[in-house]
């Protein structure tokens, strides 16, 4: 059957399909074929081949986060979106852009810059927009511009059965029908293949500056964050960097007109106190993940007002399990990332206990702990997604969209 399938995949992609190599494995699970469709129609044709032959499919963008989530429970076709890389339309006057899923974020930003515009997501290097949507990436700019889901105004997807569906449109205001784009955001490839997205854009700010202040203790950080959010200084980002428990920095990004930013920088310095300093550009850690490939990567959310409970919980769990935890994130939004560096003597049990302890305390900070990434042995030892509200509803949705469980099976919450 193998050759016959490859022939079908080739036919579907104008010859852009081949047998998979070792490097095409997804989180340790080998694929059998790689198919690289060039447009939505070819993507639909690939999904029809998969449907006919009951093949499991995992979509791949730039492949930077392909290990996130659980490994797929089965995998036949790696659907590579690298050729779906066109910027279809940039309507500068309407401040929207339509781009294909494989288009890299840095390429897109570079082209928007000519019109003094940007997609207000933080520069995420070479990740693709499909992967950014599917993993619901979050970064510092979210404080003032919203998350991926808030900037996404339209979407084209291919369903598990090969049917093409659109939702939303290309206008910023639109309430016609269900918003499938939001449903697909953060779906990790389990509901459909995103082939095209429409985003609203923002003007590049004329000026910006960053104020930083050392802050490490939960109470101190909380106090500063509260001062900032209740002020009328409208920071564009408020980020905490806490590489070790007593070496923290709080950074505040200000954006606007040159005159306005100058004034607000002065006022922010005054608000935060004598130890605060300002600079024209953000510190090197700004917007970067506090972990490397292969590390244990956590996403922890919290109620803004319960930040001290979270920071204390992290500290306590870290001490109790002897795991050094690097923390960074958007403390005025409620999303933190945390990394546990792994080396030769990775203590799987200790990592599992760390995650358990943080989840145990979740009620105190009102959030959740997701293990975005971890070495396979760690993932096998714990539930990477943790408790999920509304899981039955999610299962029902998955069952409607992909009853045969062909799309990224097993990767998502509750085994979806």
């Amino acid at each position: 059957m193998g050759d016959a399938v490859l022939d079908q995949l080739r036919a579907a992609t104008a010859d852009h399909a081949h047998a998979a190599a070792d490097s095409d494995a997804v989180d340790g699970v080998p694929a059998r074929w790689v198919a690289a469709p060039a447009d939505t129609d070819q993507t639909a044709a690939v999904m029809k081949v998969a449907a006919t032959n009951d093949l499991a499919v995992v979509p791949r963008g730039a492949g930077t986060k392909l290990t996130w989530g659980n490994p797929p429970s089965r995998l036949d076709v790696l659907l590579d979106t690298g050729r779906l890389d066109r910027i279809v339309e940039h309507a500068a006057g309407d401040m929207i852009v339509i781009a294909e899923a494989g288009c890299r974020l840095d390429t897109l930003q570079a082209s928007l810059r000519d019109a003094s515009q940007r997609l207000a997501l933080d520069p995420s290097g070479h990740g693709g927009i499909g992967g950014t949507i599917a993993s619901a990436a979050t970064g510092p700019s979210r404080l003032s511009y919203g998350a991926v889901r808030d900037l996404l105004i339209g979407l084209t997807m291919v369903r598990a059965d090969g049917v093409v569906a659109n939702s939303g449109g290309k206008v910023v205001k639109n309430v016609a029908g269900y918003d499938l784009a939001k449903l697909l955001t953060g779906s990790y490839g389990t509901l459909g293949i995103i082939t095209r997205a429409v985003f609203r854009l923002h003007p590049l700010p004329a000026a910006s500056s960053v104020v930083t202040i050392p802050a490490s203790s939960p109470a101190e950080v909380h106090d500063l964050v509260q001062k900032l959010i209740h002020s009328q200084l409208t920071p564009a980002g408020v980020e905490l960097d806490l590489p070790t428990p007593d070496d923290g920095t709080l950074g505040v990004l200000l954006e606007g007109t040159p005159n306005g930013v100058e004034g607000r920088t002065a006022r922010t310095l005054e608000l935060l106190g004598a130890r605060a300093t300002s600079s024209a550009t953000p510190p090197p850690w700004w917007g970067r993940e506090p972990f490397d490939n292969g590390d244990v990567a956590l996403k922890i959310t919290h109620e803004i007002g319960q930040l001290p409970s979270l920071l204390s919980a992290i500290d306590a769990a870290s001490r109790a399990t002897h795991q050094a935890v690097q923390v960074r994130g958007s403390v005025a939004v409620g999303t933190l990332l945390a990394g546990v560096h792994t080396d030769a003597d990775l203590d799987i049990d200790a990592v599992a206990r760390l995650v358990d302890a943080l989840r145990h305390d979740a009620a105190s900070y009102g959030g959740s702990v997701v293990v975005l990434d971890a070495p396979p042995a760690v993932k096998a030892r714990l539930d990477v997604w943790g408790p999920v509200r509304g899981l039955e509803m999610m299962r029902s949705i998955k069952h409607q969209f992909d009853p045969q469980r062909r799309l990224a099976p097993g990767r998502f919450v509750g085994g979806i």
Partner: protein
Amino acid sequence: MSIRGLADELRSLLGEERVITDRQQLRTYECDGLAQYKVIPALVVLAESTEQIATVVRACAEAGVPFVARGSGTGLSGGALPHADGVLIVTSRMRRILEVDVASQRAVVEPGVINLHLTEAASPEGYYYAPDPSSQQVCSIGGNLAENSGGAHCLKYGFTVNHVTGAEWVTPTGEVVEIGGKAPDSPGYDLLGVLVGSEGTLGIATKVTVRVVRAPEAVKTLLAAFRHIEEAGAAVSSVIGAGVVPAAIEMMDALAIEAAEAAVQCNYPAGAAAVLIVELDGPSAEVDDQFDQVQRICEENNSFEIRVADDDTERAMFWKGRKSAFAAVGRISPDYIVQDGVVPRTMLPEVLHRISELSEDSGVRVANVFHAGDGNLHPLVLFNDAVEGQSDLAEEISGAILDLCIEYGGSITGEHGVGSDKAKFMPRMFTDDDLDTMQMVRCAFDPDTISNPGKIFPTPRLCGERPGRRQGAHPLAEAGLAEIF
């Protein structure tokens, strides 16, 4: 079970006074803000708690009886239009603001809470609830959630969906589910993303957690008058093109101004073919800088008079004309249709021109009021129902305007929703496959289609087999190694 049987059951479960079956009383609920559609519900329940709503929904599910949620009934698409053989579940007794948590910048409210009341509750702390539909003095947060309502200030601050972070939800099978909360990004699919804007078709919100926003340091408002509507349109494009993101840019044309003058004497500059209201808010220095820029742009586009509001009273005067515009056209026409469509904002001048052609060719007057910054048109199509044929003609023009919106790459609704009114237009904007896919979500939540049936989708989808409960359980959970709940 018959409706009468259901009424008896609900009476015994909830108490006499919460269940209405008297025909005269039922009539109060026969329509929402779109009065041309009227249906008398079989019975009405005035719910007071989540448990009561869940009880009613469960009873409906068991009896196979449809139910429709209703907040304040101000919807303009017939979303809360009752079902003749169904139960109307009214939330107007669920008006408690449960919590305003300023430290976390969130509020938790019952679904019947009036939009403006939340802002009033948060304002002593210097906070407010940002989405501000013109109906904010009466509409409910539950209705806002269901319609994903917008308002003049949504240009900068986003719509309801950008402000809801959690909900307690009664599913169409009567289960109570917590979704999201005060923290962002709860793990799993973005259920709130589809529930907000689902127009009552996926169940009922019984509690809503929303963001509250710090009030801006400065607010500045100007009113600019133009002799030609194209000039006003060009000014809007230039403002946005200059990288300014105003809190609001609203436009009214001559006919809308005439109506507003007749109704509320807003005293806009005489002889204007169009006025713009531009509001900027934020830090003082930025607002000042950009306000000068906006004024310059209006002058460059031949505005013949620019007024700047010196205080809140003057600002309120500017807004009074705009906010009363819908009702005001009642002064210049016995009947009217409020249309709601969207076009890419750069297409505004062209689309306005096409609308005026439609109006001239048919002899049907159209007044234009709109959220110009995001291309959201509210053409008011004027007619006299007493004159034979006028109502049909007005409907035709109203529909033709939506076709224009679609032709220019826009939408058939920017904020009022599809409801009963626009279901028939959905196939003009979406393919059968698009609609089929949306309805897969419907099937996931409401396989028997009892939650507000007949709204949004012109033809229901057959849902097929039910999902198995244990489908796709995590292997660890299955093996008892990890806890899912």
